[in-house]
């Protein structure tokens, strides 16, 4: 039998075995049987050494050709088998990706609209250089009324529907603050009586620019009044601030808050014991539809009270009203939230109904900033 015959036979044999291999292990067995140390092709290669140089010249390329051919066929078959195996695995590993995943907590939790609007107001006034001042909910009559120029027995006191606490050992009754205005007094007194000592906030150096958001209380309850609600007070004290600047601050704030290019405000003379001149402010709006649209329309909506800080209030805080002056305003945080986000029942704010919170609440990372937008 000639070498040619051997090569032809081995080729046929091995090609058949390669084709017949059904997995990588079987193919590897073929590889060992052919190309391994004791493999059939290796054995043939080993015969080259004992050949005459003449014969080797023709036999060498032929045997090496066979080796390369079989090696390539094994690789090719191996690739096919691996491909098939991967296909089979992929088919077996198919998942129903439409299955719902566990909800991330961030999709569930909600920030209450009061906190959200609180943060929105904070963001806007922060840009105007205001700080936040705070005071206690339980106030003395002096901070809540007397220092704010409410004369004893004045009907304006009665308009406040005050909650009183049980009288203390000395017979005086503390009150739940009926407005955030006592924080004006606390801030001014602190500015005046350096160094500061007191509650929550540090010393406020004149010029004073503060906002004071907080809880307030009135003995009242219906769809638009709850015994507890939230107000934000603003106070600017220096030696020159006047009504023209008050108008600017309020216009800029309302524009930024309602995210509209312009607002039209109507200032009406009014009365508050702690400001003089006093004004109420209406904002132009459209109330024809289901929701109130600010910045358009022909209706007016009362939105806040304001004025120049009353000289008696400045005096009560030890400031000379001929030297110092400034303005203050107060508005309802809950009311601003209702107007901006379209809630109509104030009572629902304090009911903690999950359905309401989920509907009107805000996501944890929906943080109002001026750089990212107040509402996303």
């Amino acid at each position, binding site marked *: 039998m000639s070498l040619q015959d051997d090569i032809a036979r081995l080729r046929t044999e091995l090609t058949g075995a390669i084709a017949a291999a059904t997995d990588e292990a079987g193919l590897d067995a073929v590889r060992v049987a052919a190309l391994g140390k004791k493999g059939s092709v290796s054995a043939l290669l080993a015969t080259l050494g004992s050949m005459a140089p003449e014969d080797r010249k023709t036999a060498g390329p032929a045997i090496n050709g066979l080796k390369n051919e079989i090696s390539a066929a094994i690789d090719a078959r191996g690739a096919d088998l691996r491909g098939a195996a991967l296909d089979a695995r992929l088919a077996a590993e198919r998942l129903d990706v439409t*299955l*719902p995943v*566990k909800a991330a*907590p961030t999709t*569930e*939790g*909600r*920030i*209450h609209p009061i906190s959200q609007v609180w943060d929105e107001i904070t963001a806007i*006034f*922060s840009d*105007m250089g205001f700080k936040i001042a*705070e005071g*206690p*909910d*339980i106030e003395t009559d002096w901070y809540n009324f007397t220092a704010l120029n409410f*004369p004893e*027995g*004045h*009907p304006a006191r*009665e308009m406040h529907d005050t*909650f*009183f*606490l*049980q009288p203390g050992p000395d017979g005086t009754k*503390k009150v739940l603050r009926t407005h955030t205005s006592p924080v004006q007094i606390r801030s001014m007194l602190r500015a005046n009586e350096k160094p500061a000592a*007191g*509650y*929550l906030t540090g010393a406020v150096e004149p010029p004073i620019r503060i906002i004071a958001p907080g*809880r307030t209380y009135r*003995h009242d*309850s219906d769809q638009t009044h709850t*015994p*507890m609600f939230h107000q934000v007070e603003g106070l600017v004290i220096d030696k020159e*601030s006047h*009504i023209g*600047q008050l*108008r*600017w*601050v309020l216009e800029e704030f309302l524009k930024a808050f309602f995210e509209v290019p312009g607002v039209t405000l109507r200032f*009406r*003379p*009014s*009365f508050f014991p702690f400001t003089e*001149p*006093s*004004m109420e402010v209406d904002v132009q709006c459209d109330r024809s539809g289901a929701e109130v649209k600010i910045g358009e329309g022909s209706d007016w909506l009362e939105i806040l009270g304001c004025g120049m800080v*009353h*000289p008696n209030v400045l005096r009560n805080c030890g400031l000379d*009203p001929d030297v110092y*002056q400034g303005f203050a305003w107060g508005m309802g945080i809950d009311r601003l939230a209702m107007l901006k986000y379209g809630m109509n029942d104030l009572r629902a704010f304090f*009911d*903690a*109904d*999950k*359905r309401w*919170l989920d509907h009107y*609440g805000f996501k*944890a990372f929906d*943080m109002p900033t001026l750089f990212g937008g107040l509402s996303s």
Partner: protein
Amino acid sequence: MKFTLDWLKDHLDTTADAETISTALTAIGLEVESVEDQGKALRAFVVAHVVSAEPHPNSDHLKVCKVDAGTGTLIDVVCGAPNAVTNMKSVFAFPGTYIPGKDFTLKEGVAIRGQVSNGMLCSAAELELSNDHDGIIVLPDDAPIGVPYVDYAELNGVVFDISITPNRGDATGIYGVARDLAAYGLGTLSPVDGYMAPVASVGASPIAPLPQQFAPGEPKAIRKFAGRYIKGVKNGPSPEWLQRRLRAVGLRPINALADITNFVSLGWGRPLHAYDADKVAGTMVLRNARPGEKLDGLDNREHELDATMCVIADDQGPLCLGGILGGERSSCTDGTVNMFMECASWDPDEIARTGRKTGIVSDARYRLERSVDPALTEPALELATRLVIELCGGEPMEPAISGDDVFPNTIVEFPTSEVRRLTGLDLPEARIIELLTRLGFVAEGAGTTLQVKVPSWRPDVTQKADLVEEVMRMEGLDKVPVDPLPRLSGVAPRMLTTMQNRRRVAKRVLAARGLDEAVTWSFISEAEAKRFGGGAPELKLANAIAADLSDMRPSLLPGLLAAVRRNENRGFADLAIFEVGQVFLSDKPEGQHTYATAIRAGAAPKSWQGSAPLSVFDAKADLAAVFDALGHDIGKLQLVAESPAWAHPGRGGRVQLGPTNIIGWFGELHPAWAAELDLTGPVVAFELDLDAIPEPRKKPTKGKPALKLSDLMPVDRDFAFLVDRAVTADKLLRAARNADKALISGVEIFDLFEGKGVPEGQKSVAIRVTLQPTDKTLTDEDIEKVSTAIVGAVAKATGGTLRS
């Protein structure tokens, strides 16, 4: 306060229409609440003849009426008014008519207890003409059938309703409103001289000037009392023009004398009172009420009086609560023959105090507590006298006057530059003087500072800022130029204090962990407050709005638990909510702390990926997350395995910073309380006192220490210990970690097991210790050495042994 355009025009000569007047009123601070064209609103109501009114077959109080409304056919109407009788004239509304007082539109052909009713006979309240619900309107027999009622009653005027701020007593009369409008440039004020001039008397007053009997130091509400005895009057219904006036602004005509008092009160803001002089027993005096005295008031109620309240009394006791309410005993009736008219001045503060104490709301109190023009005491009495004689006849006696009015006669030093200083608006001095003069102020003096004399009707104006407001009101606030507030610095400084920022962060972290933010009442029930160590008397409301909202909350948990309860009632038992808000540990400012408190209740959400039931560790994780987010090192928190009172005694803990500073609690709600609240699922909660976390020491931003990274691989070693059940994980972990502080970089518990293979009363705790070499790779020997140290440390601390 309501008034009609017609009435206003009695005092103001103007060509301005209702809309112009309305805009002007609002612009000068007399805020218009509504402007109603009565003719338009009530045009559909017609005069009708009740041809018959028979008892309803199926009702004791209803009547079946046949009504002629001028349509040519009789209309069947069921009527519930007790005064509906055959052959009367009244006011009728056809089906389809909107009834303003009831806020509904009448339907066609309704059956009331089986009887058809095609329309409605109306009361004055149903037309919103007054509060009179007592029956349907009764019209004179000659009222023309089928004619619109507004035309017949001449109710076709425009009615303004304005709200008057507490400082503007001068505007509680239509005359005062006209004076303000005239100053604003909307017409000319009509003079009062003619009708307020003195009326000649026919003789001495049978009632002497009322002695003012007050001891020194006693509260004294009366200032000046002016009275006039008018002999031989003939009382009865007032003339139609007067009745119409009163009806148009919602007042019910009573009789001529009473109507005159209302007319003067509304018209000039000077409340009067009419006594039937023949019903006065003995001497009329002014004094404070005596203990136990009562007044049978014109409001049909009996009022208890006390020694701070000034009364007009006779020998039998109080006739009238001064400045507030008249008494029934001396009231004028149709039979009154001799009457005594009062026009008095009172101390506004005393009137306000007595008003508040008694809770009486009256037109007189409304005006007198805001103060009235003292210059009008006698002129208004003259006017009233004139009206009585005109409408009821009679002869006036000499006025009986005691006491004195108080005229502040204020003169304000007014630098005109104040206008610019407070408003930013530049007004020439001449303009400022013009505006003040129009309002009745007298400006004198030259140069930059004026001496401004305040008119008698504006006691509220006492200083410079008040005058600036007057100038602004008249000039118009829209004239003030908008002027930017200058920035104080380039980049705004930090706005929030640490505490304010803590609240913000705590809220966002808890929301990010899947909890909804709730805002609940600051007050809770006494029982709930006491459960949390609250309920102190000084934290109790004296006038709570409801019995279960009586005490300032010492904890946010009761409010949140109540919210869980409400949600469960609505079918939402699985809930995760939190509140970051104030609690009240005392009534002092420093007793108000901010807590972050969260509750998880019910079942954990079910998922095909598996879910762990709610446990106390969820609450602990929430607490830890907030603490961490506030920028604090969780490793510094000390955990004491002692439950707060509200928690299951074996499933709760306390967290502290240091041995005494308690900053929070967590736990599973005590089963007894859960049962009390009828909560079905497990409830876990935490409370964190944000105020108890110390402020970071104030330092400017500082760099962080350099980061040291080892090139050497960390090595993990696992150990399983058998320890007594009571041994805390904290103790075991601490022991392991401290076995070699330099080498051990972390210790985790990765398995906990009790049961088969573990002796009774013991548990298996498996930990993984991470060793981080720093200078050389660890040899087997090194690892063996540290492992021995760990086992030894754990054994020493816990008595635990390595599980084989």
